[in-house]
């Protein structure tokens, strides 16, 4: 799963540590999500969507569309 979190975060001038604090997760978790090494759970994905004020499907998108 790919995502636009790095771009959205940068647009707000937030550091990874600040985003982690807002989400109440570790900075390592933010890094893992941004680099695509970890796909967050639905609750965390919804928390990200709420934070950025965007629907989930505009933040996360599959690497390749399946049938």
């Amino acid at each position, binding site marked *: 799963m790919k995502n636009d979190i790095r771009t959205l975060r940068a647009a707000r001038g937030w550091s990874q*540590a600040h985003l*982690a*604090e807002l989400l*109440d*997760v*570790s*900075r*390592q*978790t933010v*890094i*893992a*999500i941004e*680099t695509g*090494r*970890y796909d*967050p*759970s639905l609750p*965390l994905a919804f928390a990200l969507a709420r934070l950025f004020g965007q629907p989930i499907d505009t933040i996360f998108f599959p690497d390749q569309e399946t049938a």
Partner: protein
Amino acid sequence: MHEKRVARAYRFELWTSIAVYAVLLAGSIRFGRPLADGPLRTVVLLLPMIGFGLMIRAIARHVARIDEYQRLRMLESVALAFAITAAVTFSYGFLETAGFPKLSMFSVWIVMGASWGLVNLVRGMVGRRTVES
């Protein structure tokens, strides 16, 4: 910061449990060993395990406090450490058959702790290299 808050709470609870263990251990050695054999002596000699109970509680609370990604990483590391421990202890079991000295069961825990440390070290190094590249 989330990880610092979590680590601080864990350290406090873990060191409290270790302190309880140490105090009860000293007490059980001082007062339990001289007692005559019987249920009271058995209970007094087992008292340090209350500290162990608190340690299990501290670990359970820590696992509940860490976030989902850290929990996944911990599970992966523990699973790998578990497998390495099995490999090392089985190998040494064969070596004992070949004439190596018999070791205490306590050494299994040391192997498990060392394996977990090694797994975390290697994964940390690999992770840093991945982030840098």
